[in-house]
């Protein structure tokens, strides 16, 4: 099984301000389409999630 693992961390709450899940940083559409995304698209999403997380950490005064 070389499939790309789901980035879900079981928080599953959409943040109204960012439009991203507070746990995994995906948009609603990315979560909804995960099960039909080809692996290369999933890998691309995983990379983007890292960037979104860094942006959130960078802008969060609490670190």
């Amino acid at each position, binding site marked *: 099984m070389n499939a790309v693992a789901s980035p879900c961390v079981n928080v599953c709450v959409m943040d109204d301000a960012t439009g991203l899940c507070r746990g995994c940083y995906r948009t609603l559409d990315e979560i909804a389409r995960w*099960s039909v995304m*080809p692996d290369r698209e999933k890998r691309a999403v995983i990379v983007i999630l890292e960037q979104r997380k860094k942006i959130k950490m960078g802008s969060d005064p609490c670190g």
Partner: protein
Amino acid sequence: MDNLLPATIRVLERGWLSSNNIVLHDDAGSGSVIDSGYVSHGAQTVALVRHALDGRRLERLVNTHCHSDHIGGNAALARVFGCTITIPAGEARNVAEWDTEALHLDGFGQRCDRFSFHSTLASGDTLTMGGLHWQAIAAPGHDMDALVLYAPEARILISADALWENGFGVLFPELYGEPGLAATRATLDHIATLEVDVVIPGHGPVFGNVSAALERAYARVEAFERDPERVTRNAFRALLVFYLLDRQAAGFDELAGLLAQASFFAMLNSRSYRLEPGALAQKLVGELAAAGVLRVDAGLVRPAG
């Protein structure tokens, strides 16, 4: 992986606290959903289901079994969409009376919003959803009243927690003195007789290599048959991790309190480890941290990753 399913079936792959939700387009204006995730994820479940309905009304919600991770969004979906709710026939009394012990809520440290159901489904019944005819098939094991749904025309199986790509759900009935392990084997035997090209499990990804998944499931059954204590250890670990996915963090005192006061944990402890709850909390957390499933920082236990 290319999409193995017709466009009328939209699988919302969730995590472990929430079950997957399967949205089916019944016609241009209406749809159905199978299973609704955990109560604390209700808002996201509603949003995802609305997205997957693509403008349709949600007419009907069907549950494969009534564990908190599969029925938690029922009340919210019914409130928002006005859908009917159909549950397995064997759960009718428990849900009608909202028996929180029988529903594995209070005694397991789990939560769920109460809901009313409109109809029940029994093994042998058929349903039309997503333009396909589905047979409800009894799938006892993880839950003695559970159903799986099989569409022979499309060779699709909605397997709930009876069969995942890698394993199946905790064998609670076995721990209550019911023949859960034997039932699991019989359920796998029945699934093995069906012509299935695609499985939509209750957790984890949709998969196509059904025989490989069955092989892994049988190996797990055999391991439990050789060492029945493993069923108990698996139940403790899975339930503790589930509690922490729900709470997101807990101190050792809280976990010791859970192990002492939640009746299922207390019962299991008295029949197996027989440790003082604080010591049991330390032991279980230690094992799960070593396995990379939990982490501990500054005295707080959290899910890892």
